[in-house]
């Protein structure tokens, strides 16, 4: 390795090792420690002339229905939200690609703009819309469509809606990048050969956009699984998601070892999809 390369790589490499990799090793370490009263609230692993490692935090997670349900719940919410985001996002991306050239930039910016504004405030905005005496219920009742307010907030519906809303741009952007690369001549050829628009879409456009779909699905699913703000603000007492449980273990129960074990378990769960992200992003980069 030449000196020049070392000069470029060394600093960011050291930074990422120190502030990205080493922290995980510490999380792993503390997940094997006992909870203790004091600062910091966990027992040292090394000391008293030996190594004191415990698997009790993991046994707790695997044995307690609350944690298992929170993991399964997070996966279920994230999977449904990803599917809905694909159904809404695909026509949006497809429509932008097929819109007249001069409109495309504006339409694309309209998709990106919400992403630049505060995530927290966008989630909060739904509270005003969905709550019992909120805007949606008010509108539906004044139109005479419903007699009593619908329960729209603090349930599964509002959590999934929040996840779809929060991460929709992450679905649309890779889909757009992929669909934009599609050669229109392929569709003309399909049409010349007698394919109806739907058949051409199903046999040409859809298969060729699969890498974009894969990238979008990963970018929506992974952060959704670990989401905290949405289940906290839009969820109800029955909303069990692992990101929120981890937060509560840490901030409310001050149980650092269990919070660490939850983080390790979540990382193991997400390791495979996270490993695929870089490959998919490279494939769809414009």
């Amino acid at each position, binding site marked *: 390795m030449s000196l020049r390369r070392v000069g470029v790589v060394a600093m960011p490499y050291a930074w990422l090792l120190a502030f990205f990799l080493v922290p995980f090793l510490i999380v792993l370490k503390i997940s094997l420690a006992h909870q203790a009263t004091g600062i910091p609230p966990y027992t040292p692993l090394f000391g008293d002339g030996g190594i004191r490692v415990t698997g009790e935090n993991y046994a707790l997670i695997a044995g307690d229905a609350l944690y298992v349900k929170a993991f399964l719940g997070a996966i279920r919410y994230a999977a449904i939200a990803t599917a809905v985001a694909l159904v809404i996002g695909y026509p949006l991306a497809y429509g932008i690609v097929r819109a007249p050239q001069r409109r495309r930039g504006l339409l694309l910016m309209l998709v990106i703009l919400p992403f630049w504004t505060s995530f*927290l405030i966008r989630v909060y905005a739904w*509270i*005003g819309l969905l709550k019992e005496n909120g805007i949606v219920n008010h509108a539906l009742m004044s139109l005479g469509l419903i007699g009593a307010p619908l329960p729209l907030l603090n349930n599964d519906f509002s959590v999934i809606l929040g996840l779809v809303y929060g991460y929709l741009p992450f679905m649309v952007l890779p889909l757009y990048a992929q669909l934009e690369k599609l050669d229109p001549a392929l569709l003309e050829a399909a049409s010349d050969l007698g394919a109806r628009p739907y058949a051409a879409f199903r046999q040409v456009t859809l298969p060729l956009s699969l890498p974009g779909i894969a990238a979008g699905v990963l970018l929506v699913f992974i952060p959704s699984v670990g989401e905290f703000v949405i289940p906290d*603000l839009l969820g109800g007492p029955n909303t069990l998601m692992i990101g929120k449980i981890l937060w509560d273990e840490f901030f409310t129960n001050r149980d650092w070892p269990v919070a660490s074990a939850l983080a390790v378990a979540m990382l193991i769960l997400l390791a495979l999809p996270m490993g695929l992200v870089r490959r998919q992003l490279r494939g769809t980069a414009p």
Partner: protein
Amino acid sequence: MTNRLSPFLIAMMALGFVFLYAPIVSVVVYSFNASRLVTVWAGFSLRWYGALFENEAIGRAALVSLEVALIAATGALVLGTLVAYALARFRRFTGRTLFAAMATAPLVMPDVIAGLSLLLLFVALEQATGWPQGRGILTIAIAHITLGIAFVAVVVEARLSSFDRSLEEAALDLGATPAKVFFVITLPLIAPALAAGWLLALTLSLDDLVIASFTAGPASTTLPMVVYSSVRLGVSPQINALATLILIAVTVLVASASRLLRAKNT
């Protein structure tokens, strides 16, 4: 591929955009509502903006957020550009796989994991070395730099891989040193990506609640942390006013940045 947007597609797009903007519009409209209640329109009023400007907690938190974000975006820009350059130009070097993985993972890393792990690092470091003394702006900024590196790197790497490398090669052939080639040829060519990456890192930092909550100290409450604690208590017209101001700032910033970039690209 132009024209012939089917009515179905147009309807789906319209629904998509309504979905994206309905909550935002509702926040803006009700920030001018004289009444405290969401469903009652009691006339146009700026009272919530007045209350907002007198709210010292929000003002202080905004300054903390801004300071953190400026440090974080600038640090992420420098380190992220180095990452992108290494990944785009050095096909092989020892530990490249680990390097690429560490630089990409924060893109999708759940915030709770990133926040928890960095906090535990800071606590362990302080125990072992005495640094950092307590937590505050510095520790939040370090956390946000680590997050921002990934986003800057993706944006800059895409640009580095797409432009004509023969320009760099020509300069090298003509005797320029690699450092000079970078500053005279490469840097101006990737400037739009650098601007976009910096803005992205700035926005991410200003917006982050979870990582900041883990890594903040008692004296360093950021704006999202204040917003979060007041939002937990329910819908607040002051927060609507704050949201509207943030929206206006972001829209102006993004629109002018994209105009700037387009002017440079053509």
